[in-house]
């Protein structure tokens, strides 16, 4: 019995050693530059959660004006963080993407204006800044539904256009640009901020995606990445300060100009957005009703021709 145990232990040690020797190298592209929005990924990487499951996950942040899906398409990345709407749109247009993990459960997009905006109608004929890299479907939908006739200004930097007065309003993530605007010395009043979720456009955002082909070929690996990422997020939620340290390391590593208070704000707000409305906790699973809503929106905008099913998005 004892012999068996020793041999077992030896095997385990060698086995683990063998595993670490041949880590599988994959590339993950977050949706934007390094920030606390991806804290779970940096934590999983820094705490060795990926390595523990035999993976060498390399992070490749996209150029500021580029959508991450481009990296998925050209094969330079296997995993991407993307918003649900754009993933559905790509899928609907024939580039099938698989949702491995639904990270955020709510929309954190807000519109900030120089003038008071209490209703979408207040934005009529406004020149509004949107991200060049995408994730602007909700604004488009609102523009269309409310017939706002807005002029969209794609931008790669996030707040300078708005601050310089070159645009009337700007799209902003509550956890990111909104905070930056405040830090830039704008004394925003409540009526200058319009939350899209509050006006009926609450669609979950960040999710971890791979192409359907890749998923089929590397199902186990995909699950390992998903689980390790999930583990990373859980750890970050439990150790926000340490997670913040890791995030700050990452921002430095990827030459992102930011600061700790900003990232702290972002982490807190993002963790809030991860709480599923019904369950009241982090589920990492896409809510089917949210998918229905997203389908509805994309269909109404004619961005997709037919409804994309839950299975289509999660099982190839």
């Amino acid at each position, binding site marked *: 019995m004892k012999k068996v145990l020793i041999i077992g232990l030896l095997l385990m040690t060698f086995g683990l050693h063998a595993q670490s020797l041949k880590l599988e190298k994959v590339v993950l592209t977050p949706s934007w530059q390094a920030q606390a929005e991806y804290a779970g990924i940096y934590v999983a990487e820094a705490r060795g959660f990926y390595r523990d499951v035999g993976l060498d996950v390399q992070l490749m942040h996209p150029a500021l004006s580029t959508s991450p899906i481009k990296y998925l398409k050209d094969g330079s990345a296997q995993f991407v963080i993307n918003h649900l709407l754009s993933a559905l749109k790509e899928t609907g247009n024939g580039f099938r993407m698989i949702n491995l993990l639904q990270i955020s459960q709510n929309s954190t997009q807000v519109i900030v204006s120089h003038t008071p905006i209490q209703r979408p109608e207040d934005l009529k004929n406004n020149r509004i800044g949107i991200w060049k890299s995408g994730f602007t479907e909700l604004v488009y939908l609102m523009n269309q539904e409310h017939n706002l006739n807005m002029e969209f200004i794609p931008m790669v930097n996030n707040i*300078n256009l708005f601050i310089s007065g070159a645009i009337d309003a700007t799209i902003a993530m509550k956890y990111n640009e909104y905070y930056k605007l405040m830090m830039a010395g704008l*004394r925003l009043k409540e009526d200058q901020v319009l939350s899209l979720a509050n006006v009926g456009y609450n669609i979950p955002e960040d999710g971890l995606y791979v192409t359907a082909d890749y998923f089929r070929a590397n199902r186990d690996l995909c699950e390992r990445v998903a689980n390790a990422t999930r583990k990373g997020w859980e750890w970050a939620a439990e150790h926000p300060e340490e997670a913040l340290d890791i995030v700050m390391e990452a921002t430095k590593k990827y030459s992102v100009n930011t600061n700790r208070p900003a990232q702290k704000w972002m982490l807190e707000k993002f963790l809030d957005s991860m709480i599923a409305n019904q369950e009241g906790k982090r589920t990492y699973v896409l809510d089917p009703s949210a998918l229905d809503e997203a389908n509805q929106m994309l269909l109404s905008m004619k961005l997709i021709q037919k409804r994309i099913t839950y299975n289509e998005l999660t099982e190839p």
Partner: protein
Amino acid sequence: MKLPRLLTPSRSFSAKITWRVILTVFVIFSIINYSIYRTTRNGILSEAIERYHGMAEATNEQVSSALGAVEVALTNNIPIVEENLDEPDNLYGVVKRILELNPNIIGSAVAFEPNYYPHKGIQFSPYAYRDNGEIKFKQLGTDEYEYHYMDWYQIPKLLDRPHWSEPYYDSGGGEMTMSTYSVPLHNKDGKIYGVMTADISLEWLTETLHQLDSIIINRGRQGNNNSIDIADNPYSFIIGKGATYIVHPIRDRIMNETFFSYSQLTADTLDDHIGYEMLAGKKAYQRFVNKDVDSYIFYSPIRKTEWAMGIVVPSDDLFFAARVMGAIILALMILGLLVVFGICQKLLNQVTKPLVRFAGSVNEISAGNFTAALPEIKTKDEMRQLYDSFKLMQTSLVSQINELKTVNEEKGRIEGELHIARAIQMSMLPKIFPPYPDRDDIDIYASLTPAKEVGGDLYDFYIRDEKLFFCVGDVSGKGVPASLIMAISRALFRTVSAHESNPAKIISTINDVVSVDNESNMFATFFLGVLDLPTGRMRYCNAGHNAPVFVNGEDVHFLNVESNIPLGVMSGFNYEVQTVTMPYKSNIFLYTDGLTEAENAEHCLYGEEQMIKTIQQCVDGSTKDMILRMEQSVANHVLGAEQSDDLTMLDIQYLRKQDEVIMHRQLVIVNKLDEITRLAEFVESVCEEVTIDPSLTMNLNLAIEEAVTNVILYAYPEGIEDRIYIEAVCNPNPRRIKFIISDWGKAFDPTTKDDVDITLSAEDRPIGGLGIHLIRQIMDSVNYERVEGKNILTLRKKLT
């Protein structure tokens, strides 16, 4: 040793004054210095504010002019761009030239709108940049760097005006932190067809502010160390339009943080306010707390851009000069106080040193050395006055002490003389008792206890012509003056009574003498008695003295006396004589008020009552018993209390029984010389009857005849006839005879006539002089009395 003494206030005169002066000077110094400090401090603050504003302005000017140069460089080249629009590749040369001409510009591009040159693709932007000192070219727009969406392109295009971009790290272009000046390019229709840019490195800006910092930091900033505690040092910074730090001593903050990243972490809203002001392009300064350090911030906008520059200076640095000056003022004040202290001490010591020496001299003087040396004073101030006063005091002390010495010697001498006077005074008084041991008809005892050395009381007695003359007197006051009056009175008593037997006359005479020239207003009470020993008849006169006590067996009472007035009060006073007859064994007790007014410690007087009581207790004893008993009684009363007055007592006891008469005959004649024959027959007949030998009979006859002849010849005026009584009495044991001649003629006392000078011729002798001499030769005693208008002359002769 010396300091603690000085530190104890109010120890010495000089310390006291020194401390008061120091305190006053300290208060004045403090007020002046504080005012100076406040004024200077405010001046320094204004100056510092000006200085920092000036520095900010200078730096601002430097930055602005550099930026202005960039703007000019770019604007000047726009026509060249326009000239070369047809040859887009020539534009590389244009942007290269911009770099060549302006060393501050690190990159320059002409960026065209999408598909401006269809053959060049969507993006076309000739770009020149510096790389290790070389100027290189590239086409800026790529898939990775879509410049149409960059701030430097979008903002000037959207705003349609030149714009300085917020600083950014250009990862697709220059690979450094830079800011880009962009000018929109318009075609003839006014439509924007592109943007022309010039990049400047913010390293240059940082360097400029570093130079500023090294000026404002006296201690010098330690490189770019992020861990430096910037709050303690002055520093400058620049923030962009979005409050992002463009220049900051902490490098990590540049591009990463905004002014509000930290200011909003604190509850203090002032720093937020400063940020808003800076973003609003205000130029001002504020005082605020920068990371717990009280600081000032000076801020102003940077022209051309919408950036703002701030200089933060800890208050300590700002007020450093004021503090240094305050310290110098304080040091000077302390030094000044020390100098004042020292001078005060020295001066006051100089001034008060003589005082201490004066104290020493005075101690010596009080020890008895009146000629002790005084400290030498050379000044002519209050010390000199003090010296003079001391000197005067010394001199007058010596003279007064000498005077006192003389007085004391004088007093001693006087006291010695008083002793003698006392002895003389006492010697005047009869002191031997019993005074007449061979007489059995009289017993006398007296005592005089003076209160002072020489007293004013007196008593005296003597016997002349079978009459006892006695007196008691009390002179007002004590001592020598009283004793002198006493001596005079006593002498007068003796002198006057030698020839006068009438007490009233004696007293009147004494009074007249004493009253004359009595400038010292001395007076004396006086009682004088004349006791006729054969008869026991006592005539007396009182001059204001206490009534004597008359003792006859159990009958003790005060003698009935007229008070009259004391001697010496008024001359010519008419004193009255009184008479009493003393029976056998009766006493007359005389005293002065020293007896009745003898006081005990409780000021209780001995009193007449006690005196009478004491007398009653010893009516059977001798005079000596009486007086000793009285002395004892008084001693018991006063119980050792100091005697306040002279105490004099005189007790006379009459011890003569009435004689047995073996013959008593009387002859009445008229005042005619014819009657002498009858008188001679009467005398002879009497002598025969009592068997007196013929020779004595003849002598007696001669004496009687002489006396009666005198009366007949002189007692009556011419022609007046009156009777003359001649009484002859003979007593046995011892056998003696007396003749009593009575007449009603004018008063005439032959006994007062001096003995005749028998050497003179008969014609020259005064009247009666020879007669009385004869009578005195024959008879044993001649006694005259004037009683109730009657001259009574008694002639006595013992018969052996």
